[in-house]
């Protein structure tokens, strides 16, 4: 009689330890990347790392601006292409799609989330890069921000669609009914009542999508060209900046880590720390926004 209560209690504490492995992992990840990155941060300085515009490890120059610009631009490109599509999908699934159609679209979006990034990268290399190369601009290799943004847009679609759809479904029925009873069309109800009430959830979805975009590595290495340059328009048309090659923060780490040594290796870990902190901030702000919504 008594032993089973002792067993119950000890199992409780044992399971509690297991529940703490995640935070232990987070702590270890933070600790080890920071420990390896610290020499670079103290020797080069966080300021010079973040504002230096030349990355030439052989000459001990470690400026991350080209990679920051690359990551930011490709994320903007992906957001321009992907966000309207993803929110359109969410509205479609939550409000408009007949059952047979959502039975097709929902598994399709799920599968898009499951396709390996290396497969997206390969598809980008053999299909999108040759397509982008057809744009007749001098210096356009096809590899670059445009192809990378298109790949990334598809990769963040499932995240944004799923969370936005969830947010739209949380809008109380009465809002819809009240609006429709006033004689609005369904579309007016969607744009003036439902989307505004789901706004914070949709914003959180977009922020999480951006977080995913900043973290993507392999597919970006395969299509973005990886030149360490600050992307510039290729001619007088400012839009040709998207035909420029670039390198992302994540790609920079992956491409160089296996042969880097000393301060170079440390600088890559420092990049990892910056990325880790940035993405943690992004994700927790998205969670804060969502919590506000459900309260």
């Amino acid at each position, binding site marked *: 009689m008594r032993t089973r209560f002792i067993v119950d209690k000890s199992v409780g504490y044992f399971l509690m330890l297991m*529940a703490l492995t995640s935070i232990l992992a987070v702590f270890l990840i933070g600790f080890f990347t920071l420990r390896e990155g610290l020499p670079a941060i103290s020797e080069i300085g966080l300021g010079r790392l973040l504002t230096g515009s030349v990355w030439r490890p052989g000459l001990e120059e470690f400026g991350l601006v080209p990679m920051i610009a690359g990551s930011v631009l490709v994320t903007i490109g992906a957001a321009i292409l992907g966000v309207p599509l993803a929110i359109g999908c969410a509205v*479609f699934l939550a409000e408009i*799609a007949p059952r047979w159609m959502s039975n*097709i679209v929902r598994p399709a979006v799920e599968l898009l989330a499951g396709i390996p990034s*290396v*497969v997206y990268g*390969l598809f980008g290399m053999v299909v999108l890069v040759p397509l982008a190369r057809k744009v007749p601009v001098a210096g356009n290799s096809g590899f670059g921000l445009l192809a990378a943004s298109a790949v990334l847009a598809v990769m963040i679609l499932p995240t944004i669609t799923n969370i936005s759809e969830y947010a739209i479904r949380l809008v109380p029925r009465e809002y819809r009914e009240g609006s429709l009873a006033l004689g609005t069309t369904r579309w007016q109800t969607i744009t003036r009542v439902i989307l505004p009430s789901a706004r914070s959830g949709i914003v959180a979805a977009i922020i999480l999508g951006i977080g995913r975009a900043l973290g993507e590595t392999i597919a970006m290495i395969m299509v973005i060209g990886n030149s360490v340059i600050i992307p510039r328009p290729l001619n007088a048309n400012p839009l040709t900046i998207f035909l420029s090659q670039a390198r992302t923060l994540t790609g920079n780490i992956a491409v160089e*880590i296996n042969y880097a040594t000393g301060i170079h290796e440390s600088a*890559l870990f420092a990049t990892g720390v910056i990325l880790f902190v940035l993405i943690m901030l992004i994700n*927790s702000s998205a969670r804060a926004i969502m919590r506000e919504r459900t309260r």
Partner: protein
Amino acid sequence: MNAPGSGRSNLGSRRLMQRIAFSLVWAAGSLSVLILLIVVGYIVAKGLSSITWQFITTPPRGGISGEGGISTTIVATLYLVVLTVGIATPLGVGAGIYLVEYAEAMARKSRIIRAVVSTARFGVETLAGVPSIIFGLFGYALFVSSMHLGFSLLAAGLAGACLILPVVIRTTEEALKAVPVSYRNGSLALGATRWQTTQKVVLPAAIPGIMTGIVLSVGRIVSETAIFYVTLGGSYRMPTSLLSGGRTMALHVYYLAMETRAFDKAMGTAAILVISIIIINAVINLFSRKLSARIGA
């Protein structure tokens, strides 16, 4: 302009507006399906021709020719799946059980435990958002270098386990939450302890949901490239022990595409990856249907 209440006069234009908008939204929904069909269709159609029995059963020959098959990469992938799932499942299921079945009751009694519980929750949420290249860096710093495991299955498996741990925890939580409270109350009222209740009543009902999480994790490991790019070394030889390096199928696609001209082989390997993911998704859907049927009954 066309605020509700401005009368019937603009009803026509409002309806037209709606028709245009709805077509755009339909287009968005259909486009996502179309994109999927194009990506999957292209990869499978181009890759299918290089998939032969010989391709699957011979090892890659290495070098820049990209010749040979993919047998060793299949083996390395399977080893890593077993290793990561083997590490993450007990920990993740245990953590999930704690967070759903024990946390609330234990936190009610003490403030310290309440803090512990919210720290654990924060850990799961944060870990779920960490990008894979950071897991790779971490694995490289801790397992490959500091612990002297070298580029090995073990180092890669430990880093990969961190990736799927939050997946297992979350799906376990979902699965447990879906079990009706009445099951627990019935068991507790008969005098069973919380652990007896969990073990004999709640867990059996939650098994299909937990299986979903495990299958999902298998998919994540099969798809993962960045972590293994940094921790596995990339050797195309047959792994012989936990400490040998290797390359997974996904990694092989990367090397073929970036370092050789053997795009046909890359396509073939990618096609096998995509087909595995489709099968994995189908299995997940089967499990969740089973789960909802069981809860509905």
